[in-house]
């Protein structure tokens, strides 16, 4: 199936072919007919994603504090790896927040 995916690092949104999901306990698998992109909300998210790392940091000071804490505990290298990985993680688009 196809899914709209955003890369956190670049903010780029793409449509990717990915494996169909499986229903976990208490879940329902639904074949989509239509979905809605709410322009205002999504514009904000996309803009955040497109900001530089420093811009992102300014926008989310709570995340920055967590990163600093992690550096103290797990060392700079480990934390950097984790942050990089987090930034590489794809974000699904469309789930209302």
């Amino acid at each position: 199936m196809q899914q709209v995916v955003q890369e956190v690092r670049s903010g780029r949104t793409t449509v990717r072919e990915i494996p169909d999901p499986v229903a976990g306990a208490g879940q329902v698998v639904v074949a989509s007919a239509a979905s809605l992109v709410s322009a205002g909300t999504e514009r904000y998210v996309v803009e955040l994603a497109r900001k530089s790392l420093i811009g992102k940091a300014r926008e989310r000071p709570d995340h920055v504090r967590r990163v600093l804490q992690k550096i103290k505990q797990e060392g700079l290298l480990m934390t950097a790896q984790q942050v990089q990985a987090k930034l590489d993680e794809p974000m699904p688009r469309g789930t209302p927040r």
Partner: protein
Amino acid sequence: MRGVQEFKPGDRVATAGPHAGIVSVGRNLCARIPDGVSFEQAAYTSVASIALEGVRLARATLGERVLVIGLGLIGQIAVALLKAQGCRVFGTDVDPAKLELAKQFGADEVGVGSPRDAVRNFAGPHGVDAVVITAATPSNEPIEFAADVARVKGRVVLVGVVGLNLPRAPFFLKELEFTVSSSLGPGRMDPQYEDKGVDYPFGQVRWTAQRNMEAVLDMIAMGRLPVEKLTSHRFSIDRAAEVYDLITQGAPVLGAIIEYPAAPAARARRLDLKVPRRSRSGELGVSLVGAGNYARLIMMPALAKVSGISWRGLATARGMNAEHSGRRMDFAFATTEVDELLRDPDTHSVFVATRHDLHADIVVRCLRAGKNVFVEKPLCLTLAELARIEETVRELGDRCPLLMVGLNRRFAPATAMVRDFFRGVTPRTVSFRFASGYIPGGAWPQDEDIGGGRIVGEACHAIDTCVALTGSAPVRVYAESIGMAKGLETTDDQVFITLRHENGSISNVSYQAGGDRAAPTERVEVFGGGRTAFIDEWDTVSMWRSERLTEKRTGKDRGNAAGFGAFIDACRGGGAWPIPGPSSGHGARVDPRRALAAPRRAPRPRRRPPERRRRRRRRVGRAPRMCGIAGIFHYADPAARVDRRALTRMTRALAHRGPDSEGFFYDGNLGLGHRRLSIVDLSPSGAQPMLLGDGAHALSYNGELYNHGSFREGLKARGHEFRGTSDTETLLRLLSERGASCLDQLAGIFAFAWWERATRTLTLVRDPLGVKQLYVHDDGRRVVFASEVKALLTCADVPRELDGEALNQYLHFHTPLFERTFLRDVKVLRAGELARYNAGGTSRRAYWAITDFTPRGGSPDENVAALSEQLESVVREQLMSDVPVGSFFSGGIDSTAIAAYAMRAGLRPQCFGVHFTGQGVIDERPYQESAAKALGLDLDLITLTGESLPEDLPRLLWSQDQPVIGAAMIPMDAVARLASQKVKVCVGGQAADEVFGGYARYALTHPLDVASQWARAPLRRALARRGRAAAPRDEAPAAVGGNVWKQFAERKTLWRLAHNVRQNLSGLGDWQERYFHHFAKVPESMWTGLLAAPELVSRARCRAVFRETLAKSAAVDPADKVMHWDAQTYLTGLFQQDDRMSMAHSLESRVPMADPRLVRFAFRSGFSMKFRDGASKWILRRAVADVIPERVLNRRKVGFDTPAERWMRGPHAGWVRDTLTGGRARSRGLWNTAALGRLLDEPDHPLWFDAVWKALCVETWARLVLDRDGDRAFDATSSEEVPA
């Protein structure tokens, strides 16, 4: 649609899922689309619900004036909903283009930007009642605008995303209420609601995310929410990316609908990321389940460094992650289905790094599919899951693939260093501080169903490290967590866990979630063998030894890479599991839950049918406990396994001791066997060997613990839950709690084998006075033990060599001394001794000894009263029984007294006696009959004629295991057989003479004292006889018969005294010498003449042992010293005879006179209480004077005198001669058969019987044991089938 009832395939639903062709959403984020509502309209459900939640929070009521800032999708819908609510609505937006649409959605007035005056005009002088902010802008203006136009106590609800510098003044002055609305409504962001599908009760929470969705769908269906007017663009999913481009380019997009093609029927859960190819040979195909932090940051990079691995499939719950990470890490395919990995023929091994609750299920599926599994810790969350995994492993047997848990710290270089440093040190002490820091109670690691909590989920690392560092699996655990306090969400993540390991090591895990995150987290301390080591943060290793410190750095290496390497190596090599798994019986190593709960063992099958058990359970009280125990322990070879056939044979050789059933317990290199009489156990809870803590302790026990009741309350108070009422259980619990230190407080007769799995230590214990026996054969690596020697003889490898010194001691003292038996390689535990066996070797020590000989003081009458009281309570305690108790009855003081006390305790013991009427020895019968008559007891008598002596002697010696004491075994055997026909338990007066000084020979230590007593005694007796008529009985003077000198008056005794004087004139003044010569009747020269190897006999060696033992005794008084000697030697021989003669007939013989409490009492009585007024055993005679008839009290001591001598000289003389001088005796090499023949020709020799009897017994024993006649004639096991 797992576990979901409310939706069915084919239903049209609106969801809060992502933009994807197929979505998987929680049941609570799903709402049915009413008829007449199109998919496109329904696509607005989520945004409309967000608007509705904002409107609800604004609590706008009919007639109120409300401002909506921001007229995007949500703003427009909010306007329509507020209108439906009966409000007057003012809408504003920075974009004038939106205003017209707002009017269509019902706005009463609209304005561009922040039209403060227009809003004030609209609302009136007080301002608007509520403001709903549905804008998305970093600007602070919407908040400031809202604050400016709101009325006093107005409500401001933020639905969108705006700058949030709240201007204090207006909020303060107007006391404004400000709320940030959370998405769809209550339930959103709550994992319980979203993921687990737990709904909030309708009555309590009327509006939830789902119910808001239903409400807006209903509004759409009613035509009151014209959402379709909001659609500005339509794209197919292939071109969806363009929407985002338009949006970011600032194009006027409002509602953009993404349309999806009809989904194909077949699910595409596997996505090939590369052109499929067959893997190259030699490559290890590896698949992975889960792509979380651990998988991506630790597992994948570490495995990427291992060459020869090819990545096959990556499975995650959300396909997006599988696809993304799969591409990055060069996987062959991505999937959402674990089964896809299992179906992949090129996948050899699967790494599992999912949420903890999925581990067990995936592990089992992988193993069944034949894939090796590496599962991130924990292996599973529940014992049920563990059992399932263990069952799978067991079921698959040899076909079971590798299973390893990611307990990586055991592979850390620091662990290896410290293990190396402590090599050879056992046990060790390990302390692990794991300060992991706070995790909120709602987070998944704290969720017991998902993460398992932090102990199972994380502290397992520390527990496994302790296992690795002690080199031993945990067998016992204690834990305490902090108490609950206000503000604390979780208490079980601040704990101390204490573990006891198999090898005796202990460890402590301090898991701390209550500290500061910045502090160091992990520190391990190890101690033992004079060495100390610390591991800090897996970075620094400090090791001290001989006051020198060595420090090493290991670069924060927690062993992850090494752990993966070990697994991959094992996969390649097909070798053993890197961490021993459940199949090795050490489940504790793989699962922390297992470590926190005592390992379980399958209950042993019970042999008795249930209805029989039920019947017996009703009976309570003290029943016979006689049993037979046996065992094998390869203490030096942990890997050795017990030969079950051998143990079964050994145990069955004891069948007569417990004819009804048997039980076995095996634990690797240990096996315990037990034979019991069914009546022994009144409930199945008394089955033996008895286990505690599922085998942490095991006990195979033979005996009777008289004072066990006194321990039960204390044990119960300390938390022991008794399963039954047996003394076995009391003893086992006592041992488990206090170890061997409890032994010296036990009053009873027993021999037992106690197994402690924690230290793999076997402890063998014999009772204080040695009433019960325990024989051992120890070859330096393995010990075999049993209640009787004949059981050991069923082991082919127990050598049958005569112990020459045991023979020497028997010839002098009538019994081998202390630990010796007639077999060189078989020893018997000493009385009051315990022996310990474990991998570290063996040790023995005395736990009980008579050390206090200080006379109590007090008047004779006070002493007598104290004994009387003590005696009564002891007899009462030992005789309380619900089974018929019999009494051995000689008609003498001791047995009559016991029978009399039994009557006082409310019993009427059936009495059993033996006599030799008409055979030239003192006829006991009149005494027995008159004593029984006086007490009013029934007496069964048997007359012995000695006709069957040639048949009886081998049988009795086989029963007895070796020659010991005298011919008393013949009458004892007869009376035991007689009694066994009517009762299961018999009491008797045995040991009274040794304990209370009944033998005249003790007088040899105080000849002058006794002589003067004798001189005065007749006068006293005359006075007493005269006074007795007038005085009450208990006031009668202490003139109670038992004239010592009468015993010496016999011809033989006089001869012996004269003989000794002749031989040892020089030693006559020495009481030790006098006693020794009296005891060792037959002179050395006579024995050396009768034996082929004269050097076997040495009076000097025996004398040395005798003197040495006397010197070691804490007693001061010579009489106490020799009585102490007798208690340690002669008495133990007597008990052996007593045990074997009764047990041969499945009869339990109890000996109240040898109760340790009475014995301690007796040894503090002093000579003056034992010999008084010319009477031996004076204190006992006086104490029992008021319970037994006078004619019994004053009769002469006889004991079990037998006419054996007459039988041997008369009817069986030929048999005796054949035995001692025939071919077998000649070829034995032990005897000077010519000299024996000459002795037989000299019937008047005063020591004829003493010498001939012993020679006859030794030769008969040699035939039975050394020549194996006994195996052929009496082996009980040969007729029974021995299972493999």
